[in-house]
């Protein structure tokens, strides 16, 4: 394979890695995919170093001089969770490794995968509502709390999705999510006495909980990527803290306004 080809392969692999990392894949999966894809095309020197914020990749062809090693670095800034894309790229990389697909063909498949949109915002909001309403039932809520959590959570999902869209800082987005959840919970609780604030808030904050970050932190740590593992764990802690901060802020405010009692 000549030099142009190896550069093309490098670009294609980086594109694959970028989609994976931006859609919420674990870094160990990204590194594994890169190495498998490159070694399947006869490269004997493949080194990749992936962190949640960047991809570093070096390649050298069999028989080439060590000076000919090519390296590319790609910085990853935006991340959103789309596990559908992770599954699709995973399928694609298996296909690529086991067949002799051309690089142009691979690029086309990747572009199609990159175009996969998340489910529409309305579907997200409704299923967010369903998720948290049923969580409250698991903790023994009554039917009024169920309805309140459903509406509150739709509001929370809508507001965090819209804040994400205008790339509001993630920390502030989660604080606002906690605030919205608590405000609606307080409104519902003061309208109807059978509704407990805690049930509604606990249900509604569940849609912001860092499930992906926790899972990825564990998987990265046990596969030896300690830096990524710690980074993801820190992300999980920061998300949890910011949710609690938002909830606490509004609760404190309400206690001050209502004169020391919490309904």
């Amino acid at each position, binding site marked *: 394979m000549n030099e142009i080809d190896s550069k093309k392969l490098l670009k294609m692999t980086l594109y694959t890695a970028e989609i994976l990392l931006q859609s919420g894949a674990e870094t160990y999966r990204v590194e594994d995919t890169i190495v498998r894809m490159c070694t399947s095309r006869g490269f004997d020197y493949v080194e990749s170093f992936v962190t949640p914020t960047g991809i570093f990749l070096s390649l050298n062809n069999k028989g080439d001089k060590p000076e000919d090693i090519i390296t590319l670095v790609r910085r990853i800034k935006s991340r959103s969770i789309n*596990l559908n894309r992770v599954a699709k790229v995973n399928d694609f990389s298996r296909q690529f490794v086991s067949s002799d697909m051309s690089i142009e063909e691979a690029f086309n498949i990747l572009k199609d995968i990159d175009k996969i949109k998340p489910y529409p915002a309305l579907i997200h909001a409704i*299923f967010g509502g*369903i*998720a948290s*309403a049923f*969580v409250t039932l698991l903790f023994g809520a009554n039917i009024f709390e169920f309805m309140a959590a459903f509406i509150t959570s739709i509001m929370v999902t809508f507001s965090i999705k819209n804040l994400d869209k205008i790339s509001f800082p993630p920390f502030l987005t989660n604080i606002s999510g906690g605030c919205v959840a608590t405000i609606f919970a307080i409104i519902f609780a003061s309208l109807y006495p059978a509704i407990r604030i805690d049930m509604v808030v606990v249900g509604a904050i569940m849609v912001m909980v860092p499930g992906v970050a*926790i*899972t990825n932190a564990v998987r990265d740590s*046990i596969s030896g990527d300690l830096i990524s593992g710690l980074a993801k764990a820190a992300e999980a802690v920061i998300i949890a803290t910011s*949710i609690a901060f938002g909830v606490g802020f509004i609760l404190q405010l309400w206690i001050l306004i209502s004169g020391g009692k919490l309904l």
Partner: protein
Amino acid sequence: MIYLYDFIIALTCTIGFAVLFNLPRTAILNAGFAGGFSWVIYNLFHNITHSSVLSTFVASLAIAILAETFAVKFKFPATIFIVPAIVPLVPGHALYYTMLSIIQNNYSAAVRYGSETVLVSIAIAGALTVVLSVNSFRKLKRSPN
């Protein structure tokens, strides 16, 4: 009977989270099943031991084992099934009461709820670690290269 009720509710709620995380359509129901099943396990152990940390640990073990089985069967990465299924186990309750106790200047309660939050999170992570490392060890043995 009460377990069937729990199963259906946890299944519905896991399906909700699955859509939020944009799971592939064909995987949504399986993830929901993992969530429902794990909640039944959680309740079973909670009724016997009254320890939320232990019950969460066992329930997460169940999720991780189911996810690995599904991963082999349906050719999806195991993470896809794990992520939505663990969310109902995440200690949102304890997190809320930690915050509430801090606001009410009740620091001993805050420490109690706070340590519950941390311990339950560790239980989830620990259970996932056990299953996933056993599995990666098995894969390593199968293909020595």
